[in-house]
């Protein structure tokens, strides 16, 4: 069975009496271990499909199975559990808690899976060292550079050892050199067996993946291997 299976999925937003079809009857399967890039122009529906796959949202119609969980009509609690256990998220805007230090930010998912405090900090420290932040453990995000912040975000996405990492324009706020370093980390993660889904509008970044899915106006218009 596929890790991610979208069948005939639509996402429709109702704004006033206007109906916005952000996604229109999409079929998409992603297998374990794949490195997929989703590209398309702004407003095409890339983030929307990411949010669905990332269990931050549910489809308006269609069937969605993530890591073996049928989630088309899932309750918020079910979605939260899948987000916590199976999925790691990396955002363009980092989305770190500015008041918490690096370790506390990284251990956040473990809090919600009920890991005891000592173990939590231990695992958070270990992952922080893996992403190269071993010397900034007690810094808070405002004291870090953009690249370092994104490393914290990646560490947070990894700390609960999920199967899939979703990254929505992870290099969008970074200069190209730093961006390349971050992309290198995704390569490594994919090599170590994680499934990576990366959203970008930059074809050169998409070219680093194994499979590119192009979206336009809520439809998958093209799919190719770079």
């Amino acid at each position, binding site marked *: 069975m596929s890790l991610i299976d979208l069948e005939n999925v639509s996402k429709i937003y109702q704004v006033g009496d206007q109906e916005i079809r952000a996604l229109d009857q999409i079929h998409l399967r992603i297998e374990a271990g794949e490195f997929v890039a989703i590209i398309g122009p702004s407003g095409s529906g890339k983030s929307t499909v990411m*949010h669905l796959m990332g269990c*931050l949202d549910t489809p308006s119609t269609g069937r969605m199975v993530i890591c073996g969980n049928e989630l088309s009509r899932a309750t918020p609690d079910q979605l939260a*559990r899948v987000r916590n256990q199976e999925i790691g998220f990396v955002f363009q805007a980092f989305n770190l*808690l500015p*008041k918490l230090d690096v370790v506390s930010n990284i251990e956040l998912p473990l809090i919600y899976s*009920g890991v005891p*405090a000592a173990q939590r900090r231990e695992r958070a420290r270990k992952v922080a060292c893996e992403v190269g932040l071993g010397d900034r453990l007690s810094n808070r995000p405002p004291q870090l550079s953009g690249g370092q912040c994104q490393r914290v975000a990646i560490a947070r996405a990894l700390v*609960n050892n999920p199967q899939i990492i979703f990254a929505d324009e992870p290099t969008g706020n970074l200069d190209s050199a730093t961006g390349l370093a971050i992309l290198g980390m995704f390569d490594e993660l994919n090599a170590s067996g994680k499934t990576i889904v990366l959203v970008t509008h930059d074809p050169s970044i998409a070219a680093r993946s194994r499979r590119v899915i192009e979206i336009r106006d809520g439809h998958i218009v093209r799919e190719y291997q770079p």
Partner: protein
Amino acid sequence: MSLLVVFQIGIREIAAHKFRSVLSMLGIVLGVSSLIATMALTRGMEEGTRTFMQQLGGLELVTIAEKNPSSLKMDFANLSPGLTLRDAEVIRESASLISHVSPEILISSLVSSFGQSGTRERRTVRGIYPDHFVIRMHQIGAGRFLSDLDVQRGARCVVLGNTVAKQLWPDVSIGSIIGKKVLIGTSPFEVVGVLDFYQSEEQARMRRSGKTSMRWKWDPFRVKNEAVLIPFTTLFHEFRSGAGSNEKTDSSKRNDSTELKKSNETKESNKRNDSIDSINLDTLIVRVRDLEYFRPALDQLRKLLDITHRGVDDFDFETREDWFDRVESSVRAARLSGGLISAISLVVGGIGIMNIMLASISERVREIGIRMAVGARPKDIFLQIIIEGMFISLIGAFLGIGASLGLIEILKLISPTENVPVLSWEGVLFSVVFALLAGLLSGIYPGLKAARLDPISALRYE
């Protein structure tokens, strides 16, 4: 997600907004402190009255006194012998709900110390039975109370109230007064006991601080402190004519005993030909065995006295129940109004907390989105907000307890009566529970609001 973590997050959040949090606590602080202070005050009122009444003889004391019979029975009034020693005997033997009985007769006589300097004053001398000490709740300061033997023998011994003893022998310790002689009228009596000095809390406080109150005040303990108590029989045989007070002499129902006039105040009146029916009493005090059976005890008394008085209702009961009822109801009123004020401030405090929590979540929408994105369930977010609200109210409650302790100290200084506020732990517990409840209720709406946030829009929120 463990509660410990929730608490940690809550503490961090409150610590990050100290001033705001303290402001939002103010209502709770006020509510809790006024609630505790009110309960301490009313408790003080209650306890003050209770000890006061205990010292005066408690609720159990019933005084039986003569009164004019109702007009209906006026015609038979002569049939009744009046209040006599017989009544006391009958009550002692037959009234199962009465534990102690003391028949009493009074005279007014000059009392002086034998051959010493002290005062020579006219005082009320009571002829009593030993039960008197129990009924009036006397404490012996030195020596002993009067005994049954003293009454049987008609012994010439006396127990003095503390003030009397001090006035008779101003420079002598109470202990060394025992054994000294007192002149009551012209008869010498041996002092066998001196009673404790009775005073209210307030009087004690004033005495300790060296202040003396200039204004005159009704002193309920004066009667006890100025008591001169001798055996009933002694008084009867020594001073009988003085006992059946003079205005009663012309009352027709009095026959043989009234013949004993002041002139007969001699030893030969000692002959025991007086039947107990003919020994008239001034008062009869009794102690009800059990307050639970107060009313039945009164009924029992009334039935017995109806027989001995041949159906003439020329007696009356004085109880302290009415008085106590009045005190109780004023305490209730005070408690209610204080409680109402506290409840209002707690509600206002709760609204204050709700306001702060709402402000707090709208500031933290993004944080909530992030927590949801990494796996926080709606109920985790809800719990977080609820715990924070309760935490603020708990801190407020503790500050309120601190404030109430200070408030009670101030109230102690200025409280005009002996009703010193008494801090009650039930009050503290009650107000903390109340404050927590206010925190809980005020957290529910903001908590629901936060928990219902949609992760995506929360993440996008600027």
